[in-house]
């Protein structure tokens, strides 16, 4: 390969060592999802039985997509491209390639805008454990609790309240109104950008080479602690005992495929960019498999054996079955209170989550940095500054609209959707544009061992079909509720009805009605639909004249309270719309920038490489 600088791609940075690239890519994949999402998914989808669709998905979807992405990335690197639009355009000189490139820029950058917040939460929790603030909080809350059940209730209540208050989930703007969290976010932001500014080898690789082993070491120490707890067999049984009947449920298979897809961080540009820093004969097969297996090690062995078994042991079945946030930021701190040396293990646990989050967020920044440098000739300082500004604006938006994690939740939804679209597009490009056979031939270049012979068939038909199935099923399941939450009028009606329903419930509280009877009473008074409009003229006097608590000790009439809640709900729905519009506008902007770059600087550098006769023959 030419060592002469090529116009538009003067930088030709490479990974310093093979273990460095494995740890960097594994670091990009290992995150909160491994330690918190995986055990939650497994325990809610058949326990040990979940592992069957999970492992099949890993073999049929995860590994092949990862191999695809590594191959495309290394191929793009041979054209001097380290940015997603350039890599895609070098291989396929059509507009859809630029769009795929723009998606591969959009998804990581937008995810970073809220991921930085999660990163800061982890750091803040680690600081709280290390400085003994949680001990103090728990001592206060359990002072009057007598039995164990009361203690559990008090501790979980305290951690829930702490999470909602400290992480801004109670009110919009609370995180930006001063306080410690904003400084923790700024510090996390700074850590990321200092590392990314140092470059691929000196920054990302150097950091991951010590952060990943440290992270795994901390997790192993905590794992040993959990496995040596008395009665741990019960906790492990709760996590791993299989419920075979669940295998007949299609949702379980979808959940397993989704977990593999989101966990490996494949298909949307992170690996693409990292792989472009490989040399043309560097082994992508073994390197990719190593990164994926490291991710699985963290997920199955460490993630599957720590949180849920310990949560079951200390808090019971209800405490061990939660979403990622509940499990991570409410359940785990509560577990640590009951666990011997919990303060130490709590600090260690959230410290390792912070490291995992940093290694992931670095990989989210690098694609945009590389695009600004390759596509527009910006120096590292300028590209870091531009990206820092853009992500700071996005993160500030997410931080401000933090009530109920509103902006975060909607951003996450659209990113996940675009992520699956990008992955599907990339695999289709590999199977049908490059050609599965030629692509696999390229994949095997320099490989320690060759990929299985059925891989072309798998990549041409099976994997794309699997991804399309995930896309359709995931959209079918999640899109309706998100689209509904973007409807201001409907949300306003739902919120207003909920206020009236609360009064009805209070009115009949003394009669101890069954849930169904209560629902019937409510439906008779307010309408059966959850978004039924309230007609004040038709309400009985006791309901129309009722008052409800309006905060700060004030009493409000039910109509006034309903109007307030409706206005808030309308506002939240509008914010959800702005999130969607903002992401679409950003995608259009990135596409335009990708188009300009591909027509000018990136296009020239690709032609230059081709003229030198070192291009991949299939592209000509």
């Amino acid at each position, binding site marked *: 390969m030419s060592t002469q600088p090529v116009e538009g791609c003067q930088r030709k940075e490479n990974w310093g060592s093979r273990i460095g690239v494995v740890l960097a890519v594994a670091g990009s994949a290992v995150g909160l999802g491994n330690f918190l999402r995986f055990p939650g998914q497994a325990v809610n989808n058949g326990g040990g039985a979940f592992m069957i669709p999970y*492992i099949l998905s890993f073999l049929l979807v995860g590994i092949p997509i990862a191999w695809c992405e590594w191959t495309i990335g290394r191929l793009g690197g041979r054209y001097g491209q380290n940015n997603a639009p350039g890599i895609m355009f070098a291989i396929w000189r059509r507009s859809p390639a630029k769009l795929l490139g723009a998606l591969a820029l959009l998804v990581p950058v937008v995810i970073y805008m809220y991921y930085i917040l999660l990163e800061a939460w982890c750091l803040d929790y680690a600081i709280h454990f290390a400085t003994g603030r949680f001990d103090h909080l728990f001592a206060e809350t359990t002072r009057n609790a007598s039995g164990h059940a009361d203690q559990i209730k008090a501790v979980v209540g305290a951690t829930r309240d702490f999470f909602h208050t400290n992480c801004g989930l109670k009110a919009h703007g609370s995180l930006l109104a001063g306080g410690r969290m904003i400084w923790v976010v700024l510090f996390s932001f700074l850590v990321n950008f200092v590392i990314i500014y140092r470059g691929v080898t000196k920054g990302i690789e150097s950091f991951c080479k010590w952060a990943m082993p440290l992270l795994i070491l901390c997790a192993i120490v905590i794992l040993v602690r959990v496995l040596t707890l*008395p009665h741990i067999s019960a906790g*492990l049984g709760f996590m791993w005992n299989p419920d075979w009947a669940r295998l007949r449920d299609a949702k379980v298979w979808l959940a397993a495929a989704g977990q593999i897809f989101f966990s490996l961080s494949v298909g949307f540009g992170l690996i693409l960019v990292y792989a472009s820093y490989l040399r043309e004969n560097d082994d992508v097969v073994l390197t990719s498999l190593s990164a994926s297996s490291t991710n699985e090690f963290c997920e199955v062995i460490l993630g599957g054996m720590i949180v849920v078994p310990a949560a079951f042991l200390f808090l019971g079945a209800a405490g061990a079955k939660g979403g990622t946030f509940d499990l991570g930021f409410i359940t785990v701190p509560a577990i640590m209170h009951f666990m*011997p040396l919990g303060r130490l293990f709590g600090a260690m646990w959230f410290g390792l989550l912070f490291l995992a989050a940093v290694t992931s967020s670095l990989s989210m920044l690098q694609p945009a940095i590389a695009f600004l440098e390759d596509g527009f000739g910006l120096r590292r300082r300028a590209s870091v500054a531009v990206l820092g500004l853009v992500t700071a604006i996005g993160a500030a938006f997410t931080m401000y609209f933090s009530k109920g994690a509103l902006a975060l939740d909607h951003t996450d939804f659209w990113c996940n959707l675009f992520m699956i679209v990008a992955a599907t597009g990339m695999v289709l490009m590999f199977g049908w544009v490059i050609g599965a056979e030629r692509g696999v031939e390229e994949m095997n270049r320099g490989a320690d061992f060759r990929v299985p012979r059925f891989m072309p068939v798998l990549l041409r038909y099976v994997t794309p079909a699997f991804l399309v199935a995930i896309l359709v099923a995931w959209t079918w399941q999640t899109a309706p509720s998100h689209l509904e939450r973007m409807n201001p009028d409907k949300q306003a009606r739902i919120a207003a009805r909920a206020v009236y329903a609360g009064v009805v419930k209070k009115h009949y509280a003394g009669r101890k009605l069954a849930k169904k009877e209560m629902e019937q009473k409510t439906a008779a008074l307010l309408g059966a639909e959850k978004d039924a409009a309230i007609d004040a003229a038709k309400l009985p006097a006791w309901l129309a004249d009722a008052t409800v608590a309006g905060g700060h000790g004030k009493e409000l009439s039910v109509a006034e309270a309903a109007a307030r809640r409706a206005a808030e709900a309308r506002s939240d729905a509008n914010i959800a719309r702005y999130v969607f519009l903002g992401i679409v506008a950003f995608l259009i902007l990135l596409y335009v920038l990708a188009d300009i770059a591909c027509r000018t600087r990136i296009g020239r550098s690709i032609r230059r490489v081709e003229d030198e006769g070192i291009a991949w023959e299939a592209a000509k």
Partner: protein
Amino acid sequence: MSVLTRQLLALAADAVEPGKPVAGLTPAGATIMTLSIALVLAMTIFCFWRIMREPAPETHHHAPLEIETDDVEQ
């Protein structure tokens, strides 16, 4: 471990689901868990063994510190 902690653990084991005995790890659960761990561990060890045993490349395989990349401004 303190007496209180032991009591809490014992209580937790009984009180997690009142009235329902806490099931330990069943043979099927233990098998699935062991197989999953063994598979992942074997794959990880195999991959890292293959990477580590690879001889050092003939070419200069470290970051070319003497060739400063343009993007990093000093």
